[in-house]
């Protein structure tokens, strides 16, 4: 979801895969990208729009993904939860090392 939001108008299979691989440090396969995107789409967090076919892709079209308002809300919620969890973890680490 973060990748879709960060890539904005250019969020499709190749760019999402590149973003996620770069962020996680693990080379994701193309197939591994579409499975979670479908689940997010089913939950109504992202929407897919077919793009125009290009010669670079052998005349095949892209599928662009976009965050829905529910998706943005969910992303914000996740961020808040992460922030809280990390803050607590940081304190715990400080306590442990001191």
């Amino acid at each position, binding site marked *: 979801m973060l990748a879709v939001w960060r890539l904005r108008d250019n969020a499709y299979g*190749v760019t999402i895969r590149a973003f996620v691989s770069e962020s996680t440090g693990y080379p994701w*396969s*193309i*197939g591994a990208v*579409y*499975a979670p995107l479908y*689940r997010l789409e089913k939950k109504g967090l992202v929407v897919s729009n077919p793009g125009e*076919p290009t010669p670079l*892709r052998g005349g095949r079209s*892209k599928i662009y993904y976009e965050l829905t308002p529910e998706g943005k809300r969910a992303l914000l919620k996740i961020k808040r939860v992460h922030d809280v969890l990390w803050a607590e973890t940081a304190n715990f680490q400080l306590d442990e090392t001191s």
Partner: protein
Amino acid sequence: MTKLGRWLLACFSSSEIKPAVLGDMEEIYSERLRGHGSVQTELWFWVQVLKSAPFLVGDSWRRKRDRRGNAPNAFCFFIRFAGMSVGLACYLTIIVITGWIQSDPRSSAVAMSPTAHHEALGEGPSDRPPVGLTRTFPHGLRPGIDAVGLSVLASKKQDGSLRRPDERRLIGHARRLFNLEFMIMAACGLLFINSFPARSSRRPAGARLRNTAFRSTAFVLLTFGLAFIFGTIVQPYFRFLVERRMIMYWLISFWLFLGGVFHLFPAIVLSVSVKKDRPIKPRRLAVLNLAFSFAFLLGTVLIFRQIDRLKDTQAARDHIRTSAMLPLGVDGGLESRLSR
């Protein structure tokens, strides 16, 4: 990108994302080709195909299930589970019994002379011909086996009987055939049961019933066709089972029950779930389907029992020899015709 790799990706992907997946792969492939060598890129491509396959298959399955829109209820799940359990039980029983037959010294006495048979059973030599054993056929021809060219597996002695290792090999071959047949049948059953709710649930009841009736009848015909061919092939080598009638009954009962479960399931479901205000009266079709399947199964059981009864008496044996009532391959049919 090789054609095979592209084809594999297309097979794994669902129709909605197929162009996107292939396009993405093409895009990355052409980019990598500029930076890396062709061999390296091709290797990368195949790794990607292999790594993507499980995700794409899972995704495709999920999309198909969601498109279907009807999650299996408890009754359907129970029927499927019961059907598959019976199938597995049948398969294991066949494996165990055929394995036991293969290792049983009595089985190797099937095609021996009467004296050799009694010696193999630990009895003294006797002039009495053993019950249900393969006799020497005129022209050295054995029903079923020679008809499909399996005789190459068997080397003949001068009296036309088989040697023990060859016979064991033949039984092993029959066992493999049985396995193959079961797998085909199980695949058909799975396809049939799964495709019924997937393809027919949103159709009108009439089309749904016609489809179901056709599929179920075709399935039963296929099952019994395969069973008949297989039975014809291995029948001469399983005659000693006449002495162990219970085993034969178990095998046949399992087989028929399995066929019955696969065949009756849609008819039962339809007969309880169809609506009344349809142009074609589906309930009648369902009842007809049930009646046909019942008659089919009953007829088969009766034939088997008749054959068994005919085997029991000497008068019946004479009757088999003198008449050509029984179809080709059924005990005594071809044999009696050849001996005339």
